[in-house]
């Protein structure tokens, strides 16, 4: 198992996140997709830290990112709750007031 396999897994995870973000319309699923992309990147941090850099800096960053992601999810979920209260739906295609 070389670095290529790990990078490939990271790409697959990220792509699933992107595609999920693009094709689903439930806001909660979108949030999950975003988290998936975030974690794909985290995973790559660990991979590059292990195979390329050789130190533990990358792995430490992962913890920082996880913390931030937790805070972000809290904010995101709060927004989603408010969104639901306001629009009575979680379908993003029906939340389109902000436009030019």
């Amino acid at each position, binding site marked *: 198992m070389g670095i290529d396999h790990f990078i490939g897994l990271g790409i697959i995870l990220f792509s699933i996140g992107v595609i999920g973000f*693009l094709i689903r319309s439930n806001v909660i699923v979108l949030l999950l997709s975003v988290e998936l992309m975030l974690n794909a990147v985290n995973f790559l941090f660990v991979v590059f830290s292990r195979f390329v850099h050789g130190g533990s800096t990358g792995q430490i960053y992962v913890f920082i990112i996880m913390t931030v992601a937790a805070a972000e999810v809290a904010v995101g979920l709060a927004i989603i709750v408010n969104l639901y209260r306001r629009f009575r739906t979680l379908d993003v*295609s029906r*939340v389109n007031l902000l436009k*030019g």
Partner: protein
Amino acid sequence: MSHYQVYLIIFLPIMGALINGLMGYSFSKRSITAIALGSVGIPLLLSLGIAYDMLFLSAERKVMTDTLYRWLSEQTYHIDIGVLLDPLALVMVLVVLVIGFVIHCYSVRYMKGDPGFRRFFVYLNLFVFFMLILVAADNLVLLFVGWEGVGLCSYLLIGFWYDKKAAADAGRKAFIVNRIGDCGFILGIMLTILTFHTVNFSELKTILMNDHAVSTTTLSLISFLLFMGAMGKSAQFPLHVWLPDAMEGPTPVSALIHAATMVNAGVYFMCRIFPVLEQAVHVLPFIAAIGLVTAIYAALSALGQRDIKKVLAYSTISQIGFMFMAIGSGIYAASVFHLVTHGFFKGLLFLGAGAVMHALEGELDIHRMGGLAARLPMVTATFFLGILALAGIFPLSGFFSKDAILWGAFERYGVFYWGMGLSAALITVLYCGKLFGVAFLGDTRFNGRIRKPDSLMTIPLVVLACFALLLGGLGLPMFSEHTIFAQFVEPSFFMPGAETGVPSAHSRVLEMIMTACVLVGIIVTFGIALRYFTRYKDTMMDRAVTHTTVSHLLLTGFGMDKLYHVMWVRPFQRIAHLCDTLIDRLLIDGGVNGTAKLAAEIGYFFASLQAGYVRYYAVSIVFGIFVFVGVTFVVMP
């Protein structure tokens, strides 16, 4: 006489105008009146003193010149601010100040209740100032300053009641028509400067008296251009249309500006440049022809008017036509004499008309007056004297001056011209008879209520009536070149080169016979007209006025206004409309709005990218990543 007196005469009226105009907002009516009357009354006394002095001076010393300062100087010529006070100018100064003072007094009563009381007297004083500048100027350019100044005051006073559309329009019309004439005036001044290198009247006269190399064509052109200015200001035939409309102004203004002084400025101006006219052989007959056409045309128009002030306005045009006939015939003294007498009796008639309007609460239509003689005896008596003077009946002033003009015209241009002039005079008599017969005699056709004029209104009438009655005395002895008036103004018209033909006893007899015939004709016509129009009934009058084309033609002044409307006003409106739609709206507005619209369209295009759908944003982010990665790894290396 000292120069200070002259400057005092000229500058006191402007002092009055400035004091009342700049500081008068807190003054009482009484002090405004005192300042306005004082600033005309004191110059009047001073000018009377100068006139008395001048009577006893020798001919050469009667011409007084003084230069206040040099206005501008070029290499070849210079223009001064200076005065030239000779008998001709003095006569004009006296006319302006005497009539001006009388009308100031009259206005105090006439304008009493008007909210623009102070403004009125400011304008009136300003007018007197500019008129004095005009008559006392010693060069063409300074004369032009006064000329435009009186034009301005005329505009301001015609449009005095500016919230009335007709008055504002009439003011504009007067201003615009005068511009046409003034255009010629300015070109004339330029040509004078180019030709003679001077604009000073005395210097011009000296040049022209001696041998000079100026061609007759140039002189004719100068005279013609300057005469154009005179035509505008003095309302001669093609440019007369503003004067009947000018009657929208207050009646004292009509009397002072549009009858007695300003409109005569053209006549005075022609007399000032008589040395040029004398040698411009082609222009004198032209002036005579214009004068004749105007005299007949305006007299006919006056015959058809219903508005008392418009009758008098057309009559003024007609009488100034007579003055220009005199100038065209080369008898300047007679022309000025008619100017003086006309100024007084026409001023009187206008003030009388004002008194009638005052009595009838603003009624202007003569067909709705009638029978005023019994109710307003004083006004009627003075008005009748004015009418007699205007008609030219023997002992009154108009007879002497008009007779001199007719005879001069006969001597110069022969019997046909004389006959036409006589017919103009007879039409004058007809409308005089009609005016007096319809408005003052016959049945009462108004509602019977009348406001009696008080003494402040009637005294000016009496004063002017005395002048109208007695001024003819200056035309004595009759049948002579050397009347009192002619002798007084002689130094102004003195040309050593000109031959003074001594008329034979034969022509004297002819003149007497012709005068007698004219007088008989006038009196008979007047009698018939008076009798006919007094008995004219209201219904007949209405039918005659509304249903016949001739009456309509006369009422509208032969449709000159309509002609000008078609000839000038409508094409200008078309051009303005074209500029509006094509240039302004299409080109300029289109350009400006187009630029704005272009920016907006670009903005709308990019704004549409922000659709509000999260998915679109996600797609564009992903797309952007692909582009970025593609460019970085595929295109760039």
